[in-house]
């Protein structure tokens, strides 16, 4: 048997193991520091620095000193920093690469401290913060400027103006073309003179008659052509007049229709700003929510790891030289996830007192531990807050993660809060606050109830609205605020409610109505300007078309009258002259006979008179 044993080999083995252990112990602080800074920077999106790392062998543990986590959004600030963090480590899990600590103690934990150097990463892969306006800005921006509205909307007025302009171009071209063929007043005068020449004077002979008739026939042919041209021109003018008149009518109706549409769309009514609490407190609430959401979204991806590395590290495996395999876990009272802090105690100064945060079962592999991670925060001897209790439970032990937060704050002396409306300020108040939020399956359900007491409002606004708002606020000493947020975590529907709304609603409504009226008046004015710009001289042009139509009718009548002129033929002239001569002779004979009859009658009368005289 002994010939199979090589005792010198045992010594060699011990030397090898000793060298490896020494190397690990020497390199471990550097490796821990590098890992914390590298992984921490990736998670925080900003610089994470560790001043010093100590590794103790008995008991086995790690101490970190002066750790700073920069704020990615404000690189000259630390999001969090602490003086020391001491954690013990269990040896057995460490031999299989699992960091398990029974207790972590963090001292002098501080938030939002100043940095001497920027904590921004050289190449930041953190998406830039969107500078979305708060609820208040959004509400105030609900009424865009008139120019923005006119530029943004597809309105009827400009379209109708354009249609009128195009119609006028087309119709005026047609009228001009038709009018070019119409005889003008000079031509009509020439026609009259020529007809006068043809029809006046005595026909001297048959030849004279024929010449005159030929000239008259030529003129009549011209008249016919001219009449057709006038008819065509009149049709063109009538059509053009109708078309332009229709377009002009549409243009004049368009502003009214546009204004009606815009009033509906850009209504700044009580509905538009139905929630005044949102208007007043929306920004702060949104900031708190954003802060919480920012960090929740950063840690959330790490919470659903079930310990089967091939799921969460699929991409990394592709880069690894060998298949990583996976650990299969079995029921035990002493689970070994990759990382676990069984208990943590973090403390630091806060609001004149101290804030103590306790954590339990902190791990990203809750399916392995079978226990949720729980954080509780308690304020001690705080100056502005009576009691502060918060409990955050991150439960990803099942298939569907459920995270919840409960916060209770009592007698919180709020710092002066500028309401951002008409210079109003909530100068002092005591707040009792209770809120809870649950995220389950990526869906948020949160509600907040706050009672504000001993409220004092100040305001130095000089406008009518400011005075009315401030006078309304002066009479308010307490009010409640309710808020809810529901829906997808990335875009929850947030509502605010408060009895403060009812009290100041009247004042704000008056302001908003005035603003609405002013807006409408400006819109109406601009739309009218547009109508004037488009319609412009077209009304005059339409009138000229109407006049032109009358003128053409006169010309047509003249031409018709001229065309009806007839030239008497030579025979008819002879017969007429003979008839006239006979009639003249007859009249002369009749006059003569009548004169003779009158003479005889007078003579007989005289004779009778004389006979009568002789009787008496």
């Amino acid at each position: 048997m002994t010939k199979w044993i090589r005792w010198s080999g045992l010594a060699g083995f011990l030397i090898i193991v000793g060298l490896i252990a020494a190397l690990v112990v020497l390199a471990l602080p550097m490796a821990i520091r590098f890992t914390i800074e590298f992984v921490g920077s990736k998670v925080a999106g900003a610089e994470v620095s560790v001043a010093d790392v100590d590794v103790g062998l008995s008991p086995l543990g790690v101490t970190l000193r002066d750790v700073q986590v920069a704020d990615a959004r404000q690189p000259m600030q630390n999001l969090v920093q602490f003086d020391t963090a001491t954690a013990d480590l269990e040896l057995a899990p460490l031999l299989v690469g699992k960091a398990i600590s029974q207790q972590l103690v963090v001292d002098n934990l501080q938030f939002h401290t100043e940095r001497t150097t920027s904590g921004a990463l050289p190449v930041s892969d953190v998406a830039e913060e969107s500078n979305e306006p708060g609820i208040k800005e959004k509400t105030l921006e609900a009424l865009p400027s008139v120019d923005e509205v006119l530029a943004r909307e597809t309105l009827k007025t400009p379209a109708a103006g354009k249609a009128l302009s195009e119609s006028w171009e087309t119709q005026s071209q047609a009228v001009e073309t038709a009018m070019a063929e119409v005889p003008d007043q000079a031509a009509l005068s020439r026609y009259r003179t020529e007809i006068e020449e043809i029809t006046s004077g005595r026909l001297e002979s048959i030849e004279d008659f024929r010449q005159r008739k030929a000239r008259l026939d030529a003129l009549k042919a011209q008249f016919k052509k001219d009449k057709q041209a006038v008819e065509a021109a009149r049709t063109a003018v009538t059509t053009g007049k109708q078309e332009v008149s229709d377009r002009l009518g549409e243009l004049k109706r368009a502003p009214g229709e546009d204004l009606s549409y815009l009033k509906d769309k850009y209504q700044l009514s009580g509905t538009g700003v139905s929630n005044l609490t949102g208007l007043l407190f929306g920004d702060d609430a949104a900031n708190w929510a954003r802060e919480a959401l920012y960090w929740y979204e950063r840690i959330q991806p790490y919470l659903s790891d079930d310990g089967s590395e091939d799921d969460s590290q699929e991409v990394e495996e592709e880069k690894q030289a060998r298949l990583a395999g996976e650990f299969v876990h079995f029921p035990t009272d002493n689970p070994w996830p990759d990382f676990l802090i069984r208990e943590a105690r973090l403390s630091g100064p806060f609001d004149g007192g101290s804030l103590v945060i306790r954590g339990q079962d902190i791990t990203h592999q809750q399916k392995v531990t079978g226990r949720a991670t729980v954080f509780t925060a308690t304020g001690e001897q705080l100056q502005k807050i009576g009691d502060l209790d918060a409990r955050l439970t991150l439960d990803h032990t099942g298939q569907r993660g459920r995270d919840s937060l409960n916060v209770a704050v009592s007698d919180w002396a709020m710092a002066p809060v500028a309401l951002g409306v008409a210079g109003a300020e909530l100068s002092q108040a005591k707040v009792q606050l209770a809120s809870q939020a649950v995220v389950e399956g990526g869906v948020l359900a949160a509600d907040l109830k706050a009672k504000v007491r001993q409220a004092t409002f100040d305001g130095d606004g000089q406008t009518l609205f400011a005075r009315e708002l401030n006078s309304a606020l002066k009479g308010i000493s307490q009010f409640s605020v309710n808020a809810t947020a529901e829906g997808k975590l990335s875009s929850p529907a947030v509502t605010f409610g408060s009895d403060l709304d009812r009290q100041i609603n009247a004042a704000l409504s008056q302001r908003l109505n005035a603003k609405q009226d002013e807006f409408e008046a400006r819109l109406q004015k601009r739309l009218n300007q547009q109508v004037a710009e488009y319609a412009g001289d077209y009304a005059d042009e339409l009138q000229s078309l109407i006049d032109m139509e009358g003128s053409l009718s006169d010309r047509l009548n003249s031409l018709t009258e001229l065309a009806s002129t007839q030239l008497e033929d030579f025979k008819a002239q002879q017969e007429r002259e003979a008839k006239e001569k006979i009639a003249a002779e007859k009249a002369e004979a009749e006059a003569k006979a009548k004169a003779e009859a009158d003479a005889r009658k007078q003579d007989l009368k005289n004779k009778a008179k004389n006979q009568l005289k002789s009787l008496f």
Partner: protein
Amino acid sequence: MLTLLARLFKALNSDSAPGQVAFGFALSMIVGFTPLLSLLNLIVLLIACVLRINLSAFLLGVVVFSALGYLLDPVSASVGEALLTLPSLQALWTDAYQSDWLRVLAFNHTVTLGGLVIALVALIPVTLIARVLILQYRHRLLAWVNRLKIVQVIKASKFWALYTMFAE
């Protein structure tokens, strides 16, 4: 690498028992088929150091079987997973899981358990086959190999100088 090869040839051609060379080579399968940095492999290294096996054959085997293990890992993972999820073995694994030191051996790791089982199953056959091949080599091929021109070229090289240095 040249030194390692020289040591192997020294072992192969020396008076080292064929069984010692063959077992050293076969034992390295455990290291090659399982993740390198583990307590299990530290124990295998201890065995390799303490037992009178040929360390050169062991180290060369680690290189060869690590390359083979790279290809064999999916099979090892499947074998390990099948064993760890076998209902009839659940009680055994659960009991073993309660011991920190057994857990340190990473028996519940699919590739580790699968690679270990494959290596243990193949240990005796590979030892026997390797032993036979070493004997055949020494009896039949050694003289013929020495006559090969390539071998003569090698004997004139730095590698041969190293070999002879270790052979002395």
